[in-house]
């Protein structure tokens, strides 16, 4: 019982982070119907950003978050203007391979600069600390990350539902052509969605760096988790991504308990089953 509660709660905690990673992906998909394979690399760059600022400037990893967010935002926007907007004009095959290419480019660029061996942040107020709630033990780094995830979800949700910018974004996602006629600069909206996508992924990476090893190839793992999450929640749905993130977190944690080497396979399997049998996701029906 205690073990089950511990697994479930750690799973949910991890789930908040998965949800945060999926947030940007689902937003981009919702606005322009494109799947971003490079999303995991945005996260990976966020991790390295946190690592570099905290070790080179020897500042607290948490303080590096705003820097990481800006880097992620700029990375998203740059990717959009240099690559994605050309891909959007082409066939779907080109879109897939284009973002796939971006993924490889960023991954191996980081590997080229930083080397392939794993790194870790060793100093910081969150590193290696735990708190106990009754008999449940939590990693402080994960707890903080979960907190940020909820905060960012609320912020993005508010932005989309309540602000003028959010309305323009929604209009673009419903019908880009109609939005153009209404005077919305859809090109800017797309770029903005990529910026937000990059920033949230990078922040997730910055948070993850507090309790996870950094390698240049870590992105693949997380982008696949994010795909599963987005599929489960329904492509384009923000609330769905949040809920699905928690479910995927629990799946991964439970599977990890019993078959640790194969745990990610269960996430892949979850994606496969969901898209085949519930193509619109949990909240899409």
């Amino acid at each position, binding site marked *: 019982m205690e073990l089950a509660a511990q697994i479930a709660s750690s799973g949910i905690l991890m789930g908040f982070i998965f949800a945060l990673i999926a947030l940007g992906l689902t937003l981009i998909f919702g606005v322009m119907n494109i799947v971003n394979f490079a999303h995991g690399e945005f996260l990976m760059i966020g991790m390295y950003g946190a690592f570099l600022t905290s070790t080179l400037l020897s500042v607290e990893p948490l303080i590096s978050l705003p820097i990481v967010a800006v880097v992620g935002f700029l990375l998203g926007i740059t990717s959009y203007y240099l*690559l994605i907007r050309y891909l959007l004009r082409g066939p779907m*095959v080109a879109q897939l*391979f284009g973002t796939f290419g971006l*993924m490889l480019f960023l991954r*191996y660029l980081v590997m080229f600069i930083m080397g392939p061996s794993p790194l870790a942040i060793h100093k910081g107020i969150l590193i290696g600390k735990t708190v106990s709630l009754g008999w449940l033990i939590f990693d402080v780094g994960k707890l903080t990350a979960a907190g940020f995830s909820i905060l960012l979800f609320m912020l993005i949700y508010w932005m989309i539902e309540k602000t003028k910018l959010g309305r323009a974004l929604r209009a673009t996602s419903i019908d880009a052509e109609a939005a153009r006629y209404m005077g919305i600069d859809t090109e800017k909206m797309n770029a903005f969605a990529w910026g937000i996508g990059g920033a949230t992924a990078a922040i997730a990476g910055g948070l993850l760096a507090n309790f996870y090893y950094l390698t240049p190839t870590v992105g693949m793992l997380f982008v696949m988790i994010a795909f599963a999450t987005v*599929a489960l929640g329904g492509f384009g749905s923000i609330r769905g991504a949040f809920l699905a993130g928690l479910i995927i977190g629990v799946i991964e944690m439970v599977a990890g308990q019993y078959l640790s080497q194969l745990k990610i*396979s269960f996430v892949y399997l979850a994606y496969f089953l969901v898209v085949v049998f519930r193509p619109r996701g949990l909240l899409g029906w």
Partner: protein
Amino acid sequence: MRAIVAVIKDTFSLADLPLSERIAFVAFLVFVFIFPWIVHSSYPRAVMINFLLFAMYGLGWNLIGGYGGQVDLGQAKNVGFGAYATALMITWWGVPFWVTVPVGIFIAVAESLAVAYPMFRLRGHYFAIATLCVALVWQQLFLFWDWTGGARGVELPIKPTPNFTFMEFGTVGYHYFIFGLFTAQFLFMNWLRKSKLGYELQAVRDNEDAAASLGINVTWTKVKAYLITAAMGAVGGSFYAVYHLYIDPRCVMHIDLTILIAMTAMVGGAGSIWGPIIGAALLIPLDMYLAALLGGKGFYGIDFIIYALIIMVIAAREPRGIWGIIERIRRKRLIHAAGGQKST
């Protein structure tokens, strides 16, 4: 009887292609044939063998990915099935190579058939990610399983060469071995592209609704192509096993292999018979010489950075690859020439 003659004619005939292409291809075949006589150092010979292997992989993937337009990101699993079938059957039981090949094909086709029907309910991105998921599950399983050697891999017994039972040779022997496989697959593809399935597949790629209105069973057409592609991947994997005499999940099951296979077809020009050959001719020597040049000096991944740049430029500018560029130039000239004639 007449039907058989027609099939044989279609297999060997390149008559529908321009003369320049036919001449270039024959020159290419002659060049590959005499290659081991002119080049004696082992590295370029290894590059040539690898090029032929990847041209073959690319030709196989081109069927589903190029002619069929379905982005399959799981071809490595089929290569893996072939490689493991051959490697394990030879090391465990000493089964001759040519018996292991059909077994590898059978496993790849059976697995593909099992996943194909649910998979082809999906389109576009969803399909691509699903193929990736399935392939990654296999990759993890082969790393995890002990009975397949796990991450340690499988070492094949070394025999005195040449050995025609287990197909072990020196470099020249391997050269002609893979050249034979490549040529066989090329001829098969040459027949297939002109067959009913070839046309149907292109119709499905271009417009599924229209294809269905013309009596084409869209799902079944995709499944057929998917299975043939799987079989071709398995044959390549079997060759890989006896060529390297060592396999592990990183070299025959890995996602990076899938990427490289798909890229040879995409960069060269998916959906044309020459595309994968051109793509492999560009990427494989680039990869191997860059690795030899820079790998030892601690530069990691520079080959992939260059690949990635090529993919991005191709995807953004000319999704039909290098062959697409050639065709476009040619077509412009044709229209130009026609216009010129009219005005005079």
